[in-house]
């Protein structure tokens, strides 16, 4: 009885809402730093929202400095994880290739490279010959070249999140599954507790890491989050012997009168030899529908085979559809809010939550333990809820 009462009266240092791409690595960081951490998740187990819909690309080569900084740290965490903690999360330093077929694309990529180099990123604009070397069999008709960033890579979202999850528990993080958050309790412009369908948990801080559901959580706290999810479909093939390493990103727009136009698409071959691919429809499909459509396979297959004809013989195993919590400028919203102490957003990852997660987690932990540095301050300003959202990211 006493034990039970004590538990009810526990006050957490931080409650993280959502056990996905952001919530879990954040819990990993806060628990590691000694904060009493609770993660509340509405789904039955860890990483069952849109994390498992991510295909696994991890890059620092963004066109926006905050994302570059965050992902540089993420890559350090992903790439050293197995050595440090023993779990294979299928990290593969395969690099990223963005391909250019038009002068316009070429210019866009070259301009971005200049910016990226300023931040110390290992990226070059390379000619068609180098691209052909990196992607054997690529259709070189009209191929001008592209960027190659060898230090980017990929890992399994499924394995990585589960491994982060278990390590966070080792460091003392607690998790509650199948618990829907129904209210955020406040007192005197300060968060005090999180109310779920099963109980109320006291806390000093709340991190909204609810992915596509973040808007709803924000509303409970009285915070309007300018984010709306759109959906992308993805798929995976049978495994075959590895024949290319990088994530291939084709940014050409594609007109498809029968099955729907699309913007970019991208694919890579994972450590097991399977090719994983994803397409960005044009216009975006806003909403929370995650049900597979009949359009996706004809749309993506045409594009991938045009680019890499030998793929016509690979067998597709499975497809799925996931949500990208989109913001207006394609950048996440991270940090505290005005007028409600203890509430922190870690939302609007625009489909990049998996690669941003570990870096975001450490940043937020520094924020909570009052250890933020000047770079962190720059990031928080950059990704603030109160920024002007008109500076659109090049490859959002």
């Amino acid at each position, binding site marked *: 009885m006493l034990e039970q009462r004590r538990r009810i009266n526990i006050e957490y240092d931080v409650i993280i809402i959502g056990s996905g791409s952001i919530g879990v690595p954040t819990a990993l960081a806060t628990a590691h730093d000694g904060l009493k951490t609770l993660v509340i998740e509405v789904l*039955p*187990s*860890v*990483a*069952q929202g849109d994390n*498992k819909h991510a295909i696994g690309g991890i890059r620092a080569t963004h066109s926006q400095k905050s994302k570059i900084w965050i992902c540089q740290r993420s890559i350090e965490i992903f790439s050293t994880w197995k050595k440090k903690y023993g779990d294979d999360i299928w990290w593969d330093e395969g690099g990223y290739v963005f391909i250019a077929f038009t002068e316009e694309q070429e210019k866009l990529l070259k301009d971005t490279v200049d910016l990226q180099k300023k931040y110390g990123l290992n990226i070059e604009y390379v000619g068609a010959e180098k691209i052909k070397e990196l992607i*054997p*069999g690529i*259709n070189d*008709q009209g191929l001008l070249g592209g960027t190659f960033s060898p230090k980017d890579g990929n890992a399994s979202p*499924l*394995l990585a*999140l*589960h491994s982060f999850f278990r390590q966070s528990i080792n460091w003392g993080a607690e998790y509650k599954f199948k618990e829907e958050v129904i209210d955020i309790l406040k007192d005197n412009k300060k968060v005090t507790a999180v109310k779920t369908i099963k109980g109320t948990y006291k806390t000093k801080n709340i991190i909204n890491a609810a992915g596509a559901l973040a808007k709803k959580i924000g509303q409970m706290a009285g915070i309007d989050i300018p984010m709306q999810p759109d959906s992308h479909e993805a798929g995976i*093939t*049978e*495994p*075959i*012997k590895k*024949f290319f390493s990088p994530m291939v990103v084709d940014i050409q727009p594609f007109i498809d009168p*029968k*099955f729907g136009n699309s913007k970019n698409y991208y694919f890579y071959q994972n450590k097991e*030899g399977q090719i994983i691919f994803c397409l960005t429809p044009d216009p975006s499909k806003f909403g929370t*529908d995650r*049900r*597979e*459509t*009949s*359009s996706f*396979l*004809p749309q*993506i*297959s*045409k594009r*991938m*085979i*045009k680019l890499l*004809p*030998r*793929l*016509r*013989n*690979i*067998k*597709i*195993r*499975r*497809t*799925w559809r996931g949500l990208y919590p989109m913001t207006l400028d394609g950048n996440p919203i991270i940090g505290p809010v005005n007028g409600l102490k203890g509430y922190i957003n870690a939302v609007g990852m625009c489909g990049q939550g998996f690669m941003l997660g570990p870096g975001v987690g450490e940043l937020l932990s520094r924020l909570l333990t009052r250890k933020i540095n000047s770079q962190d301050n720059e990031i928080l300003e950059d990704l603030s809820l109160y920024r002007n959202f008109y500076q659109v990211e090049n490859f959002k």
Partner: protein
Amino acid sequence: MENITNHPILKIPKRKLVNFSFNGKKLTGFEGMVISSALFMNKIKIFGHHVKDNSPQGIFCSNGQCAQCTVIVNGKPVKSCMTPLADGMIIESCEGLPELPDDDKLVSVGDPPIIETQVLIIGAGPAGLSACQILGEKGVQVIIIDDKDRPGGKLVLQTHKFFGSQEDVYAGKRGIDIAEILSEAVHSLSNVDVWLNSTALAVFSDGLIGILKNNEEYIIVKPKYLLVATGAREQMLVFPGNTLPGVYGAGAFQTLVNRDLIKAAERIFIVGGGNVGLIAGYHALQAGIEVIGLIEALPQCSGYKVHEDKLRFLDVPVYTSHTILSANGDNQVESITIGQIDKNFNIISGTERTFACDAILIAVGLNPVDEFYHKAKEYGLKVWVAGDAQEIAEASTAIFTGKIEGIKILKEMRLNTIDNLDKLEEKASIMKLKPLPPVQIDVPDIEEGIFPVFHCNQEIPCNPCTSVCPQKQIETIDDSIMQLPYFKGEKECTGCGRCVAVCPGLAVTLIDYRKDKNNPIVTFPFEMTIEKLKVDQIITVVGNHGELGQFKVIKSRIIKEFPLTQLVSIKLTSKIAKYAVGIRLQPSIVREPLELYYKHPLANDTIVCRCERVTVGEIRKWIHKGITDFNELKALTQVGMGACGGKTCTPLIYRIFSEEGVSLDEITPGTLRPLLIEVPMGLFARTKEEDKYRI
């Protein structure tokens, strides 16, 4: 192993031999037969080795659903069970991961067509065909698809006669013949399109169905109404050696033997005493394959008693209260170890025995293939489900449920004029009744004249004997299809033998006392040889409790209507005549067990997920850590994420959960995603190729 050249029931078509090579060795096989069967013909059972643990891979589902039979044909990885053999094929085993051919020529791409239809039926088995007939005859435009090369579903593999009634479900006819009757009725309808070799790949949320047509073309179908009649899939078991080449589902084995006419093994052992296992044993014997034994975990076989008796009379030992302990062999099955179990299913120490065999057939139950139904329902399509996809039962029941669901669709379309749904549903529910325990039946006292003796001692839904008697002297008790038949004797029996020939259970004999009261002539049905037994040929006569002795055949005849069931007459003494139930060619042989091969099953090392090679131990480890979400188990172990999409391991994992004390309602089921089977990307882009894609 060889091809079957002589079969008592199946016609052997003329087939053209062609040349091919396997790993550089020159071989021959029949043109158009699937590659896996061509390899079996050449005694090749190992088709490659798994990338993860180098375990030998070979035929498993024989149904295009997994990828364990993958071989490399002319440089491309294909499923050997789905790819027809062609002259000059260069085939290689698939060692580890296949290489994608570096075929980089530019190809033009196109869009798959979207075809509209009133009704789409997935599955042309007994349920699908029956529904299709109902709909087609009312002028409804129907597309019916099936992934096999001929309609009929599993009926096309069934050489035995079916139960039920003649009026409704063609009782007394063989499965293969029922398939033909049902198919012809559908083929004659001009408003029905039959797409064979056509697999439904996915039901999409926009109400469209993706179909791989004729194994070479991707087509999207937009139906107003959908009927899912996709049948069942076989359950597997977890035991050491369960993934060795040579362990098959009974249905997979029937495909090799009865469809491809391959003697797929020399000596088999069957696990499971339901109808599927019992019949598989009978079919193997008809194909000249020895059946070393059959085990059933329960104290009685759950299949029909008459099916079990057919095996017993043919000298197959049936071991009840037994389980399989292991399949043994280095690269393929060489023996089986079985053991007796007590009522708590624990192995009784000292009862373990090992028998030599080169194939083990698993027939431990079926699960509905109902994922399309559930998806379609979830996505708001107008969908119905029939046959085994609705509920596992006999093919005869599937005919009923197909008709019923067909009528329901007609009703929805406001086209139904006959309303006999209640009557059909009542009949279907009778067909679904589980067989009752066999009863003791008394032989008739009378020892004069001629009359049939019914050795049918179990109440099952069956009555064709009542329909064929020209004197109308055979009835069932209370005229109920579930009851046992008897001879009324108000009119004389003509001795025509039709009741003997029609009985699906081979459980009717005819006794004729007219010539010699002390030595009556007994007539038995026999369907193990294509040639008629010769006069004076010595055969063995069996009763319910064993052999009754060797006797000479005095006559063998065939009734035109039942051309494949010989009626063999033998003179017996009056003492045994009424107790004689069956005949066989050979006297009983005693099968000595081998030296016991029984490594204590390392239960934790046993494979659960064959595609990703995940062990029981791995699954248990995570269950012990508290995992109850199937999706989490998938993420952690890759279980169910391989080529077959979890079709085989999912029920096994549920069983492990239950063994570990996790109840069903605690488990979050895994998410099912398209595609049903793996399909080359080029098909979705409709690339123009000289080479056809092969799945």
